[in-house]
Structure formats: structure tokens, C-alpha cells
């Protein structure tokens, strides 16, 4: 059936015209409905979590966010250790991943030989495709033992005067969680930064070279500062991923709801506690508290992602923003 076989010959009966208009409208509304489904999904997620956590929300109020005890047996529910764990592990991840990713993106767009660029990009995309659970498996059996035997004891020896690097070494720890998250967010920050850097106009660079700038000055002044906002968007996008990362972190962070100064101590994140406790919990205050944990996590990630998207949109196509 080719494009030429239309149902409307030049002289049309009124019925056919009507049919044609109707099918036109049906198709448009159908696709509109599908497009609107993403907006509906956001509302569904928010409503379901709010509904599930309603009684706990009313019972604990703001104390939930500030409480440090998580003791399901005695019905004590405080989310602070999890919020702390999520934030600290994400910050560790950003500290490691941001310089590496932006450095790599710079190498890919400015410095690497042309023949190398596609291959490098492909490998970084492959890293993004490695499922979280496989990274976790590698984390448990290869990375954590190595960290325990080598990196951690070395760190304690070299930087032991800082409280961050004191205390017993178990292997599974906040730092291990942060490192595994860093590995997971490297590809996303790298590929978004690469897009951002690629969209810096070539004229920018040429102008700086014409003024006699060195390569480093061109990169710093003409490229990096031009792309500042976009790069920041990429980093925030990575942060959004880091906050919600679940499986790999659950497998290496140690899962102990404590607030410890040492990065060698085990921690716990919002996502991990849900992963570990949600299935085994019958409908109870405990389950409602877990829903509330989900609500907190959703709130944080939505804010962070919305911010990232707005930054990136403002950087790349100002014409399409709604104002």
C-alpha cells in the first residue's frame, strides 16, 4: 500500500470528508493522550507515595526528618541517618566524578586525536550500559576487598589525623558506596558535558587564539567559562542519578543506620533502606514510614532533576523555554 492510495478522490461525498476529519482528530487526540501520560505519571507517583505515607506523615510530622533512630520493632522512625547517608555518598561521588568527567569531556572535544574520539565515546557509553547490579557484584567481591586491603589502610596512614579517615576499617563503608556511585555517574556527566562543550561555537575558540591565547587559556577562558552553566547542569544531572542509585550502593555501603564522622564506617541510604525492607514489611507503621522515605527521596530527586533540566535548557535552547 503506497502513499498514493488515499481514500479521498477529488470529488468527495460529505460522508467521506467527515470521516476524514474524524480520523484526523482521533489520531491527534490519541497521540496527545500518550504524550500527556508522562505528566500523569508524575502525578501518579506523587499521589501514590503521599497516600501510602499519609498516616506516618500525620503521626511523625517533621520529627521524621530529624529523628536519628530507626527501630521498626519499637516503632521509632527517624530518617536522618538515611538522608545523611544519601547526601554524603552522593557528595563523595561528585567529588570523584566531576573532575574526571569534565576532564574526559574536554579531552574528547578539544584535545584527543580525531581517530580516537568515536572509540572513546563508544566505551564511555558502554560503561553507562553496565547494569547497576553487575557493578554491585564486582563491588562486593573485587572492589571492597581491594579497598580494605590497600586504599583504606593507606588513607588512614596518610590522612589519619582527619576524623574522616579514622576508625576501624570494614571494607563496606560510606566511602565504598561513594566510589561505586562515582563509577555509575561518570558516563552521564561525561556525555552531557561533551554535548555542552561541543555546542560551544568554534568562533569562540578562534577569537581567543587570534588574541594569542595558549591552548590552556583558550580552553579555560573561551570554552569552560562559556559552557559554565551547561556544565553545572550536567553535574546536577549526575547528582540526581547519584541520589537515587540503589542496587550497587546497597551492596557495598554496609547498611547500618548510623551517623558517623568516619568515611570508613558503614552507612545507609534512602534508596537502600527501601530496597532492603520494603518487601518484608506487612502493612504497618513501618511500611508507611518506608513510603515516607520514598516521598523524601522523590522530593529531593525531582528538585535536583528539574534544576538540572532548566539549567541545560537555558544553556542550549533559550528559545524553547516557556517564558
Amino acid at each position, binding site marked *: 500500500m503506497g502513499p498514493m492510495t488515499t481514500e479521498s478522490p477529488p470529488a468527495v461525498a460529505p460522508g467521506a470528508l467527515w470521516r476524514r476529519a474524524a480520523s484526523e482528530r482521533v*489520531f491527534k487526540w490519541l497521540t496527545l493522550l500518550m504524550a500527556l501520560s508522562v505528566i500523569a505519571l508524575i502525578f501518579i507517583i506523587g499521589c501514590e507515595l503521599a497516600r501510602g505515607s499519609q498516616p506516618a506523615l500525620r503521626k511523625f510530622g517533621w520529627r521524621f526528618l530529624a529523628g536519628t533512630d530507626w527501630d521498626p520493632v519499637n516503632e521509632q522512625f527517624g530518617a536522618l541517618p538515611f538522608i545523611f547517608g544519601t547526601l554524603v555518598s552522593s557528595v563523595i561521588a561528585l567529588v570523584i566524578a566531576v573532575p574526571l568527567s569534565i576532564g574526559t569531556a574536554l579531552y574528547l572535544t578539544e584535545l584527543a586525536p580525531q581517530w580516537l574520539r568515536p572509540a572513546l565515546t563508544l566505551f564511555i557509553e558502554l560503561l553507562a*550500559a553496565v547494569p547497576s547490579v553487575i557493578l554491585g557484584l564486582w563491588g562486593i567481591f573485587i572492589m571492597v576487598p581491594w579497598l580494605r586491603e590497600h586504599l583504606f589502610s593507606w588513607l588512614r596512614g596518610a590522612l589519619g589525623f582527619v576524623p574522616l579517615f579514622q576508625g576501624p576499617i570494614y571494607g563496606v563503608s560510606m566511602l565504598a558506596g561513594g566510589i561505586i556511585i562515582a563509577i555509575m555517574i561518570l558516563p552521564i556527566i561525561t556525555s552531557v558535558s561533551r554535548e555542552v562543550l561541543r555546542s560551544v561555537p568554534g568562533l569562540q575558540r578562534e577569537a581567543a587564539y587570534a588574541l594569542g591565547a595558549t591552548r590552556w587559556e583558550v580552553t579555560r577562558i573561551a570554552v569552560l567559562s562559556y559552557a559554565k552553566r551547561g556544565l553545572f547542569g550536567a553535574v546536577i544531572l549526575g547528582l540526581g542519578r547519584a541520589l537515587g542509585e540503589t542496587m550497587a550502593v546497597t551492596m557495598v555501603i554496609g547498611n547500618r543506620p548510623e551517623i558517623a564522622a568516619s568515611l570508613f564506617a558503614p552507612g545507609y541510604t534512602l534508596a537502600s533502606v527501601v530496597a532492603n525492607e520494603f518487601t518484608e514489611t506487612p502493612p504497618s507503621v513501618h511500611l508507611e514510614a518506608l*513510603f515516607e522515605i520514598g516521598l523524601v527521596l522523590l522530593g529531593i530527586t525531582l528538585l535536583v532533576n528539574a534544576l538540572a533540566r532548566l539549567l541545560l535548557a537555558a544553556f542550549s535552547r533559550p528559545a524553547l523555554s516557556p517564558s
Partner: protein
Amino acid sequence: MQAVTCACALLVLLPLALVFYQVLKSGIGALNWAFFTQLPKPVGEAGGGMANAIVGTIELLGLAALLGVPVGVCGGLFLSEYGYPRLNWWVRFAADVLNGVPSIIWGMVVCALVVVPMKGFSAWAGGIVLGFIMIPLIMRATEEVLRLVPHGYREAALALGIPLWRAILQIVARTALKGIVTGILLALARVAGETAPLLFTAFGNRYWNHHLSEPIAALPLQIFNYAISPYEDSHRQAWAGALVLLLMVAIINITVRALTRERPGNGGCD
């Protein structure tokens, strides 16, 4: 500076190399025929396989595609072909934000929406949760590809008197078909490795799934359960499972490269 950024790139690639090396090394040693044909043995016993998990993952992906592909592709058609700048901006924004929702939260929501009313974990719930995750991915990918179809195609079709909706389906979408398929495959590869949302929906199963309203096994779930179990033989199988899953994901990704490499010449993809 060349050296510093090059070192950054090497450091980024290092974990990839280490993970691939380890999965290959430990996985190949643990793979055997039984792995593909047998059910898991009772906990703690050596031997057995993951046949049910491999089939389960494929079933779940099929269910997810049934939900995610039509909704995602149609939504993408709307975004690219009908111009309501403000509405489209919001839809696009919502899709991007949804892409950032942690997958564990999808699991909780679908658990409350599907598992609780159906009174049990099921393959349906697992398929639905993966389908939901696919929707925004496919929608954005489809839109991006359709925008590359030259305007002349649409104008030529309309000038011939073809209704707009058929022009969209038969001319625009068909021209970009390869790119749309690429987007769908990448979304499938992404959800194939999802574990967190399946914990409370598909749940996992040590036996064959005989009905879609029963719990179903999935490779990522099985890998997770074996990885945190105390038995040496389970660890061996976890590596084998990781190798199979990694190969599945890699094959999809490489297929996609092959699809996009040869340019169709009409702006279909890339």
C-alpha cells in the same frame, strides 16, 4: 593539559575494563550447559542453573515493550508533529524529569498500584514497572529522530492530498523507522538490567512461572540474591548470570551501533 585530561579519560575507562575483565574471567569459568537449561537447586546445594530467570527476563521485556513502545512512540509523534510549543515544552520537561526518577520509586509505586490490588507479586507488575520506565526514554528518542526528517517530506505528502495522520505514520514515521527502533532497543537494554523496581513487583521465583499473575524470576534479581547469599556456588552462578546479562545488554548496544552506522541518506537517524 593534554596529559591530565588524557589521564582522566583513562581513569574513567579503568572501571569498565576491570568490570568486563572480572565478569568475563569469573563468568566463563562458571558457565555451563546446565546454567541455561536447569532451574536453581535448593538453597545451598551446588549445581543447577538460571533457565527460569533467562526466560523470565525475556518475558518481562516483552510485557514492558507492550506498554512502553506504543505509548512512547505515539507520544514522540505528538511532540514532533503537532506544534503546541508551550504544552510540548512541559511534556518534554516532564519526560526528562521522569527519566531522573529513581527506579526504586517506580517499584514502590507500581507495588501500591498493581501488587496490592492484585494481592500478590506478579509478572504483570514487573512488566508494567519496566514499561513505565521505558515510556519517557522512548518518547524523547522518537521525538529526536522524527525532527530529523526533512520538512519537504511532510509537505510533499500533504500536497498529494494524504491526510495528515497517514502522512505522519506512513511517510514521516516510516522514514525514521530505523531511528525509532534504535530508541526502543536502547530503552530495552536499559531496563533489562533494572533490579530495584523488580524487587517488589516481579519478586523473583525459584521455579518456572506458569501464569503472568504469579511471581516471575529475572536475571538481575537472581544475580542480586546470589551475590548476597553466603554460598560459594551461588557466587559462581552470580558471575555466570552477570556475564549472560552483560552480553545481552552489550549485544543490544552493538546492534544499535550497526543500525545507526550505515546512514539511510534521508536523515532517518544519527
